[in-house]
């Protein structure tokens, strides 16, 4: 692990690409979703790696007065001020407690760069497109509006987040 507080995603991606794409790999390359997955309140969520710029350690988040409820604050990203979104409350989950495993996933959505505070990052993975189903009606912990689908795969349940809807409520 780098000790400067950052974990670059580029090497991570390279690493993931070098591995067999998935444990249940088939010989013919099936169409896949390339995801970064992370954990929020014991649930696993995934976002397209194309939207991820990097993953950084949490190194102090400054509260900003009078901000919308789902904004946790701001942090210093190499001299740039990065707004950090409390994605848990946005999804109707309790507010996050920052632990050593916590990370900020820096994403770019429609040209805007924002940080997502997550409990921990699990992996970069490829999920076959056919394993993704529309979001079930009975998902209780999440507002299904924010999901593009649910991947049932490798005995896991990965909820695919629609970052546009999560981060740009008025867009």
């Amino acid at each position, binding site marked *: 692990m780098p000790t400067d507080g950052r974990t670059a995603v580029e090497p991570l991606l390279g690493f993931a690409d070098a591995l067999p794409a998935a444990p249940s790999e088939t010989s013919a390359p099936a169409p896949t979703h390339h995801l970064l997955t992370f954990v929020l309140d014991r649930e696993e969520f995934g976002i397209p790696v194309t939207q991820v710029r990097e993953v950084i350690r949490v190194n102090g988040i*400054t509260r900003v*007065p009078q*901000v919308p409820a789902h904004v946790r604050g*701001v942090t210093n990203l190499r*001299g740039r*001020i*990065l707004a950090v*979104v409390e994605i848990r409350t946005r999804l109707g989950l309790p507010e996050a407690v920052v632990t050593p495993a916590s990370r900020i996933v820096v994403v770019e959505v429609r040209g805007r760069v924002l940080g997502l505070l997550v409990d921990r990052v699990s992996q970069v993975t490829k999920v076959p497109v056919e394993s993704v189903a529309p979001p079930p009606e009975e998902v209780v912990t999440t507002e299904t509006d924010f999901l593009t689908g649910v991947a049932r795969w490798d005995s896991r349940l990965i909820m695919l987040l629609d970052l546009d809807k999560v981060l740009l409520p008025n867009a």
Partner: protein
Amino acid sequence: MSTEQNPFGDLLQDYIVECLPLAEQVGDAFVELERRWRAGEPGDDLLTSVKGRLHTLKGNSAMMGLTPMRDVAHALEDACGFLGRAPASRGDEAAALLVAGAGLLVELVANASLETDGGPAAGFTERVRSFLGAAPDAASAPGDRRQSDRRTQRRLGESAGASNVVRVDFRRLDAMLELLGEGLIQHSALADLYRRLLRRVGASEELGELDQTVLSLQKTLTRLESTLMETRLLPVSTVFGRFPRLIRDVAHAEGKKVRLEVSGGETTLDKAVLDRLGEPLLHLLTNAVAHGLEPSGDRAKAGKPAEGVLRLHAAAVSGRVAIQVSDDGRGLDEAAIRARAEALGMDTRTVDPAQLHNLVFLPGLSTAERVTTLSGRGMGLDVAANVIHGLGGTIEVASRPGQGTVFTLSLPVTLAIVRSLIIEVDRERYAVPLSHVAETVRAEPEAIRQINNQGVTQWRGDLIHVADGGAVLGTQGASGGMRPFYVVMTAGARRRGLLVDRLVGHQDIVVKGLDPALGRPTVVSGTTILGDGGVACILDVVRILDGAGHAN
């Protein structure tokens, strides 16, 4: 994109950047010339200085192949040359011709392109020709031409040899400022490291040297900062310059006689501030012409000269720049302000008479359709005030019935680096611009009394409100007890104390904006990075003094 396809585009942009101010200065000079001729003064010095500018404009336009601009500049140059030799021909007709020509020139230069329509320029040169032809002594143009050629050669010689001036894209200065900001942050980190090291291992010769080096680094950075800041400064005349002509047009449209007196144009401000200052100032000036100054008839009845006087004055005042816009018109209509405020549900009996005038800055108090029937002022005054506040400035108004109105603006010299007091409230740090800090005071619990649930204390002989930092900033710490210090914040004539947990120190901070994702907080105006890499919010003192943050 367009510049890629058209390498001419960049050149054209350079041309506009260089020539537009010249053309505007020419217009101002003509407006001033018109005034002087009416007053019976010759104005020869102005004619001479204007001819130099016209000559440069003519040369630059010719070099770009912009024939209409070249022709107009040339015609004006001829007219000036003629008027210089023929004082008898000076007068309203000549002045109107010159002002019209300058207006055309400004318009042509501002919209310069190779497809510029030559029609208006041809029309104007024809007007000049007939003006010169009708005049008795118009034959000496060739001599004038020779003189100009000599001047061209001299100017070329100057630019080839002695000029030390380079033009720089302002974005480069912004980039340098960013780098300087990083340097300042790294210096703070280094100084902090030195102190920790000193505590850990105790004093030594090497540590003493380190201390000295860190100190001299600070001095170097401070000098670098002031040099860079100076580079970013421009005289306010670059913004004031376009007003005389614009105000002349407004006065014409309103059918009023107005004299605009501009002073202090050499006062300097950061370009970033200046760029945003033009609009609100123009707002104030046009409002004064349209609604502040009375028609000549009313002025005569009031025993005032028919010509209304509008003053625009800038001066450096204790590290800030004060700008005053004043008129000798009818003054604000207090009864109308009161009535309008009552209509908006305000109880004006509780408003301090001195503050009553400042109600005109409230949104909705002076809407456009109310202007003429009510206070006679206020079109977009709240908008103008918002821009000024956004620049970290203040705006106040004072007025006397029948005698006139004065708007006073106070602006920070620069937006980019702000000397600030760093405070701590509920374990969060905030920066308070030092220009808004009057004093920091140790809070004695017995010295602060509660009146109507608001803390009040005696400060320099006055009673001021003291608000809890946690309440204003929405953190309301678990402490419960009184915080140990308060900061007396000021903006214009307003003051308020803010109770804080800790005074961390002074620091030059580099102002960074607020991400749109943060919504629109009213108590903070931006963010900055501190020496230890942490982020602090910058308090918006003006809006806090306006009562922002209270409801939270």
